[in-house]
Structures are given as structure tokens and as C-alpha cells.
């Protein structure tokens, strides 16, 4: 396959960015999207240019490190996959592919397609955990957890923190990300004692960091590579409301 790539290049956070056009040739349809970018970078190194920076690591869809905005969609045209799981057989010979970084104020560009997502870590640090320390915990089977709850918690916990939900949202809202963690812990007995404090602290931090609000377009759910459900947002809203109304904190 021969392809034309329009790629966002930006030297650093303060520099002005621009699209650059590149051509790659003889790409195998079995090649992954990121392998195609590897091939481009080999070409750029050959021409003594600075390679295109893009975050990636596990290349099997679980670390959440990669994330490119491809032809106007986070992680590209396929549903339920990360950028690294996207393969070139999804494109046609002669296609032009536009590649951008996540665009959201709380995720400033570091270089080219790499953005700073530490805002997500800061939200988790506000309460995305059960406050146990190592040791002194009861037996794993001491508290039975209904299978349904455990399964639902697992589905929420499958979030990989890639930021596609924020990139997809016109408001740059992080509600899907935050609600996935809030839900996971709200569904489990271990998470209940701190549930009220947790949801308030995490939502406050999310607001403080400049993530927008949710206006129920559900672009986040549509673009989430792990297909995290929007019902988590509903659960978080309920938890939040209960916390505000009932909590003594």
C-alpha cells in the first residue's frame, strides 16, 4: 500500500504546531498502524530528520500509552481497539491519513503526537483507591462479593487510562475515566467506607484540572477502546448526589 500521511509536528509545548505531509510506500496490510509509523521514522532518520514522536509501549492494547487521533477519531476507525491494535488492512491503497495528538487543554502537547496525561494520575491520587496499607487485611474470601458485582466492577476496572474519552469529548470531559474508577470501587464492599469522600474529591480535582462537564453526547463511550459503559457515569452521578445530600463530610 502507498499512503500519504498528514502528521502534526510540534517541537514543544510552547512552539507553534503544523501539519507536515509524508509519503510511505509498500506498506503491508498486516502491518500495524504503529509499525507503519516506525517505517516512516526509519525514512526520516535516513533523511537526517527528527523522527515523529509518539507514545507507545506494550503494543497489545493494555498499557494505555498510545493514543493518536486518526482521521478525526481517537484510536482510528475501528471500534474497541487502541491505536497499537489497529492494522493497515483497515485502510486502502492511496489513502490520505491525518494523524493528530489528543486535543484537550488538560493534556498539553509535549512534542509532536505526545501529550502530558499526568492530570489523570492527579485525579486518581485524590481518592481512586481503598486506603489500606500493606498487611493486616482479612482473608480474601472473608467477604463474599456477588459475582454480578465483581463482574461489573471488573468491566469498569478495565479502563486503561489512555485519554481517548477526553479527546473524543467536545467538552474535554473526563467523566468516563473518573466514573470507571468510582464505579469499580463503589460496587465492591471494600470501596464503600470511603465512597462518599472519594467521589467528591475526584470530581473536584477533575474540575480543578480543567476537564469539562458531561453533556450526554456519549462520544466517550463510542470511542473508548475498552468499551467502558456510560452507565458508569450515571452511577457516579448518583454516588455524587448521595454524597452531597447524605454525607456528613
Amino acid at each position, binding site marked *: 500500500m502507498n499512503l500519504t500521511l498528514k502528521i502534526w509536528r510540534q*517541537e*514543544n509545548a510552547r512552539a507553534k504546531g503544523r501539519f507536515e505531509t509524508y509519503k510511505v510506500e509498500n506498506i*503491508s496490510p*498486516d*502491518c*500495524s498502524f*504503529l*509499525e507503519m509509523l*516506525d517505517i516512516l*521514522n*526509519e525514512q526520516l*532518520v*535516513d533523511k*537526517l*530528520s*527528527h*523522527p515523529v*514522536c509518539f507514545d*507507545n*509501549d*506494550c*503494543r*497489545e*492494547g*493494555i*498499557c494505555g*500509552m498510545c493514543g493518536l487521533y486518526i482521521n478525526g477519531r481517537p484510536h482510528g476507525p*475501528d471500534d*474497541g481497539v487502541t491505536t497499537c*491494535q489497529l*492494522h493497515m*488492512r483497515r485502510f486502502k491503497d492511496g489513502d490520505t491519513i491525518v494523524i493528530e495528538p489528543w486535543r484537550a487543554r488538560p493534556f498539553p502537547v*509535549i*512534542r509532536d503526537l505526545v501529550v502530558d*496525561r499526568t492530570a489523570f*494520575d492527579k485525579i486518581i*491520587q*485524590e481518592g481512586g*483507591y*481503598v*486506603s*489500606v*496499607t*500493606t*498487611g493486616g*487485611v*482479612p*482473608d*480474601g*474470601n472473608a467477604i463474599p*462479593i456477588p*459475582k454480578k458485582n*465483581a463482574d461489573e466492577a*471488573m468491566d469498569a*476496572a*478495565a479502563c*486503561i*487510562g489512555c485519554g481517548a474519552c477526553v479527546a473524543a469529548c467536545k467538552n474535554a470531559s473526563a467523566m468516563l475515566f473518573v466514573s470507571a474508577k468510582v464505579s*469499580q470501587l463503589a460496587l465492591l464492599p*471494600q470501596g464503600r467506607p470511603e465512597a462518599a469522600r472519594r467521589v467528591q474529591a475526584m470530581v473536584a480535582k477533575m474540575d480543578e484540572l480543567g476537564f469539562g462537564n458531561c453533556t450526554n453526547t456519549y462520544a466517550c463511550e463510542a470511542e473508548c477502546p475498552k468499551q467502558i459503559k456510560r452507565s458508569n457515569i450515571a452511577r457516579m452521578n448518583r454516588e455524587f448526589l448521595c454524597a452531597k445530600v447524605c454525607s456528613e463530610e
Partner: protein
Amino acid sequence: MVTLNSKIPQGPLSEKWTKYKADQKLVNPANKRKLDVIVVGTGLAGASAAASLGALGFNVKIFCISDSPRRAHSIAAQGGVNAAKNYPNDGDSIGRLFYDTIKGGDYRAREANVYRLAEVSNNIIDQCVAQGVPFARDYAGMLDNRSFGGAQVSRTFYAKGQTGQQLLLGAYSALSKEIKAGTVKMYERKEMMDVVLVDGKARGIITRDLQTGKLERWFGHAVVVATGGYGNVYFLSTNAMNSNGSAAWQCYKKGACFANPCYVQIHPTCIPVHGDYQSKLTLMSESLRNDGRIWVPKNIEDSVAIREGRLKPTDIAEENRDYYLERRYPAFGNLVPRDIASRAAKERCDAGYGVGTGQAVYLDFSSAIKRLGKDKVEARYGNLFQMYEKITAQNPYETPMMIYPAVHYTMGGLWVDYELQTTVEGLFAAGEANFSDHGANRLGASALMQGLADGYFVLPYTIQNYLSSEIYSQPIPTTVPEFDAAEKAVAEKIEKLMSIKGTKSVDTFQKELGHIMWNKVGMGRTAQGLQEAIPMLKALKEDFWANVRITGDTNSMNPELEKALRLSDHIELAQLMAKDALHREESCGGHFREEHQTEEGEAKRNDEQFMYVAAWEYQGEGVEPQLHKEELNYEFIKVQQRNYK
């Protein structure tokens, strides 16, 4: 010259750890606040160690190369985590987990360490449940188990096919709590470039900021390296792109012995290689071997026809399929340990029975689907099937998966004593970065167990025994000459690399290194191949330092420079691996020397001469490293030939 002292406590095996904990020195809370600990790496071992040490009150600084601690490659572990809970009442115990691990490691691991690992395994499950890790449960609400290779009991706890992810996120959450509490300071996108020794003790590290290129100095009363393994020496492996053995290699060059570098695990169930542009290999969880049956055609003509596209696997009648693992190992069948399953696949493919490109075998679920129904198979393995389909565009519900072995894990690593301290005082190694618990082969679902055991339950104790003697040591300013010298050496290395301005890209060298290692220091090794590899690696190193081309600059994000720095260490590490593999004139676990096999093609150990840990000590550039031997004494276990028949 170092002397290896494993510091194994006296007494009966089952009492050693208890006795150690009773006798060890502790640090009182007021003094903990005055002690700085550096942790490098945020995977299971690093994150759990930092969180636990922070909660105890130490001042912890933790570093990772990614944008967030949650990216560490532990996250990619699929199948599960072992523990001797015996919830299914199927005869498991600490003793049995201990025995299975020693046997699985082909009698090349230290008894006392492995027993301790089995002992704390149960605490890991309790800890993770308390953190809110959503393990799979049955309809009574109890924790569910499944079986894994090398065991006849079901002791593997799991969270769908994403156990590593959930355990890592658990450790990450514990770490996040400590970051919020201020006991741990987190530094992202910083890579350790060197460890700094002052008066012979590890006192800090030099890092490179991957966003700005800035070199920085950090002081710690102790340094913990939890930076994972070195499987990426092979270029194509199941490791993440950024996983590397550089930090461990820096420790080696500062005097920490490197143990058993040739022990590499080749995982039997990975998606086969399909093109030379390929950047990594994807693992299909070992749990698939619970219900999947591995086969190749019985008749070589059928294999040829399949390779040429004239036949499909579904055209091959049942009686014409060779379920070679079930045939050779009736007791364990498809659930033999990884090294054995990998070699058996290679044996069939080398004999001409391979399918696909010739370097692949089938993993077939048709009988499981018949027995259990598609729904049940989907519930168990749905996400793995989906992952397979995304990569290969083939539907495993309709046609068997194709798999082939790939480099997955490195049992070798920094030599550590019972306290996880390397041969450099104050320098500790945890998780895959150390060599301690898996001998010559690791069993499935034991890596997660070891990483978390080291981080939650071992290091927080043993490091105190060291730090208790450090309470009078004032923090050392990072302006002392030792830090100056270390930073200068790193800066010079970077400058030298950038000034080569050669003609070949970093990836070209990486691939070349991978080819040499896979072909000569891979699954089947021979003295001749290893003797050929050694000069080839030497030539590659010279070629690299003369002809590598690194574009871009040093003071901003530059992935080419990052790769080049890691590769320069990987080439040297590869040289040591080849040397170690050549010296070990026996086959054991993941190290298979073709000269040393039984008539049935099984690994033939040489206990008389090689029942030891090979710990190599760096002697300087261009000088042969010195071999130290830690003899392994099996007091409690009867050493046998490993038999899974």
C-alpha cells in the same frame, strides 16, 4: 572481588522467614522519616515496594520511564497469579507450591527464597482483594481459581484475561495513596542512567529526563532497582517496546553481580512472526492451554499442503492430527511447563510439520466448544480470541489459532541474597530484575506472585535490616565528586553516541542483535552456535559504535537516542548471555543445549558440575568478567529428573 553470601537464615525451611523477621533489625518511626529510599521502576515490584515503604514512613522517590506509573509492563500479564490458598480443596499447600516452583525451575533456584515466596503468596491475594482488585468470583461470591502449566492443582487467581492489569492498578492505587500522603514522590519520564556509589555503597542515581534531556542527580540511603527483565535483547519478544535491561546493566557495571543471564523463558503460545517490519510479538495467555489442544498434522504431506494453501486445518481428520503434547506427556498433556511446550513445538516445526509459515502450530478449541458450548468458551477466553482476531484477521471460533514460541521473560538478573540485596551494599533488586526465585524456568502465573511478594512482603522487611545501620548517615549532597563523575560519564556517552553520525539506524542494529540472539542463543543452543555468536556480537558492538546514526537533538524528546542508549547496553548484555550459555554445559529449564539431551529429547541436567548459580562480576571494559558460583544445596527437596510424563 566480591564474595557471594546468600545470608540464608538457619533452621528448618518452614521457619526461616519467621525467624528472620523475629531477628531482623528495625528502624523506629522517627528515624524512618530521615531515611531516603530510591525505587526505580513502577511495575508490580517497584510500585508495591514504594507504596509499602512509603506507608511505613520512609521518604521514597520513585522513577519511571513512561508518562504514568500505570504503564509498566506488568500490566500486560494476562493469565493470573498463583497462591497456595487451597480454596478448591484439591490438595494444594505452601509445601506443594514450593515444590512445584522448584521443580518447574529445574532445580536451579534457592530453596529458602522459593519457600518464602510460597509462604507469602496467600498474603498477596488478601492484600489485592482488600485494595478492590476485582478477581473472578463464583456464584457464591467466593474467589475462583483455574489451573496453569506445571501444576496439578487449581491455584491461579485471575481477573478475566487481565490479571496483570488489575494487580498493577491495585499497586498503582496504593502508590497513588502514598503520593497524595506525601511519603512517596513520583518522577515520570525519567530514565535511570547510572547508580552512584559513595564509599562502596549505593547512594543515588543519575537520571535523564526524557522530555528535556536533562541529566539529574538523586540521593538515597538505599536504591531499589525494579526495572524488569531484558527480553528485548532479542528485539522480537512479548515485552513492551520500552522494557529494557539498561538499569540492571548499569548496576552490573558498578559491581553488582549478574546471575544466570542465559536463563531466558520462551513462551509457547505467541502469535507467530509474520513480517520483517514487525515490532513485537503478542502473547496468547497460557490459560488457553486449559481448554485448547495443541497439534500439527500427523502426515508431513498434510503440513506441506496447509503451508501451500491447498488444505485448511479443518480439513484434517481427527485421526490425522498429532496432539504431540498429549502424546509425549500424558500426565500433564497440554499443561506442561513453558520450556517443555516451547521445545516440543520447535521440534515438530524443525522436523517439517509446522503450519502457516512453517514456524507455527495449531491451538485448537473445537473440542472445547463441542464440550462446553461456544458461550462458555467465550466467557472464559472471549477477550483473548478477540485480540487474536484483531491481529491476524482470523476467527478462532471457526479455525484453530496458530501459535509459536517467543521470548517472554528472563529468569536471570541481578544476583541478590536472601534480603534481595545485590553484591553492592545498599543496592537492592526486586521482581524480574533479580534472579532469585524461578531457577532456570518460571511457571505461569508466578511472575505476578514474585513481583508482589518482593514489593509488599519481603523488601519492606529486609531493607530495614540494612537501613537500621544507616540512621546515623546524613544525606549526602549530590555535589560530591562521585555524583560529578557519574553524571560526566553519562554525558560523555551521550555525546559520543550523537557524534558518530553514521549510516545505520538504531533499529537496524536492534534487529541484527535480535537475529544473532534468536538463532544462536535462543531455544536450542549448541557450543558451535554460541562460539559463533560471541565474535558476531563483538563485531556488532564495534559496528554500532562506529556506524550508528542518531538524528535529532539531546535536549528534547528523542526516541532514537533513548533506543540507542538502551541498545548499547543490550549488546553488552547479550555478550554476557552468550558467554554464560556457553559455560553452562548442561540443559536445564529455559537453557537447552542440544548436546545435552536424553534419548527422548528432554533436557539433561548435569547436577554434579552445574548445580550452582552463575554470578558474573564485571572486571572493566574489554576484560573478561569473573565467574562466582553459589552452590545450591537442596536440603529439603529430593532432586530428581523433571518428569511430566
